[in-house]
C-alpha cells in the first residue's frame, strides 16, 4: 500500500531508499538504459578522462529518485514529475541515500497532489543530485 494524501503533511520526510551500486549493477543499467558511455564501466577509460574511478550514471540516480517516489506512492498514486541536477559524482560500492521531504500539499484539476524536494546523498552527507518532484496520491 502506498501513501494516502490525507495522511501527508508538509515538511514530512518520506522513507529513505538506500542504494549502493556494484559495478555489475552499473552494467545492468547500461543495458537497461542504453547508455554505454565507458566512464561507467571501464576503469582505464574513466581514468584516461581524468576521473578518479568509474562513476555512477546520473540518469541512474534520477531513476533511484523515481523509485523512491514510486515505492512511496504505490500503484494507486502516480509519479507526475521527477527532476534532478547532477552536482556531484557517486562511485560504485558507496552508499547513496535517496531522500525526500514534502514541500507542498494541494489539489489541482481534481487531483490530490504533493510536491517534494528530493535528493541523493553521498556518505559525506553531500547532496549529489538535488531535485524536486510532483506526485499524485489517492
Amino acid at each position, binding site marked *: 500500500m502506498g501513501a494516502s494524501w490525507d495522511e501527508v503533511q508538509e515538511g514530512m520526510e518520506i522513507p529513505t531508499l538506500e542504494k549502493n551500486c556494484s559495478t555489475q549493477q552499473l552494467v*545492468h543499467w547500461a543495458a*537497461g*538504459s542504453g547508455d554505454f558511455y565507458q566512464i561507467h564501466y571501464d576503469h582505464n577509460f574513466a581514468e584516461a578522462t581524468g576521473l578518479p574511478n568509474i562513476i555512477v550514471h546520473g540518469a541512474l540516480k534520477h531513476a533511484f529518485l523515481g523509485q523512491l517516489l514510486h515505492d512511496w506512492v504505490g500503484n494507486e498514486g502516480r509519479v507526475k514529475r521527477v527532476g534532478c541536477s547532477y552536482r556531484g559524482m557517486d562511485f560504485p560500492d558507496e552508499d547513496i541515500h535517496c531522500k525526500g521531504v514534502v514541500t507542498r500539499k494541494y489539489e489541482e484539476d481534481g487531483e490530490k497532489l504533493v510536491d517534494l524536494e528530493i535528493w541523493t546523498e553521498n556518505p559525506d552527507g553531500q547532496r549529489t543530485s538535488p531535485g524536486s518532484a510532483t506526485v499524485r496520491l489517492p
Partner: protein
Amino acid sequence: MSDETQESLITDEMRASIGRESEPTTLEVDKTSVRMFARSVGYTDPVYYDEAAAQAAGYRSLPAPPGYLGTPVFNPNKRSARPQGMLEPSRPLKRVLNGGTDIEYLTDICAGDILTSISAVSSIEERKGRLGEMLITTTKTTYRNQEGEVVAIMTGTGIRY
C-alpha cells in the same frame, strides 16, 4: 588570459539550431525492456515484472518505471537521427557530462506502447565554473504514444567542458 576579449564558445550555427526540431525517433516499450530497466534500478514491485500483477493494479501491461521512456529501435542499416546539441563550439571542448534530467509524465506508458520522440535545443549558455569553460545545452524532448497523445516531456541538461 584576458577573458573579456575571448569570443563566445557559441557559434552562429549553434545559435541558429535553437528551437529546431529533430527528426522523430521511434522507441519501443516491451515487457523484456521494462523488466531489464526495473531490474537495473533495483525495483522489487511485482507490477514491473508480472503482467497479471500489473493488470490487477490497473495497468494495461507492465508499466514503464520512472526514467524509462522506451528503447530506440536499433538498425545498423539505417542512418540514425543526427544527435542534438553536438554542434562544435568555437573552441574545442573534449568532455561531456550529464547535467540533469527532468521528466514530466502526462499519462501511463506501458509495455506494448510505441513512442515517438522529437527533440529541440531550448537554450545554450556558457559559464565559467569549477570545470573551467563550460557549455550548457538544455534540450526538450516530447514523447507521444501510438495514439498521438503526449505521454512525457523530458528536459535534459548537457555540459561540455
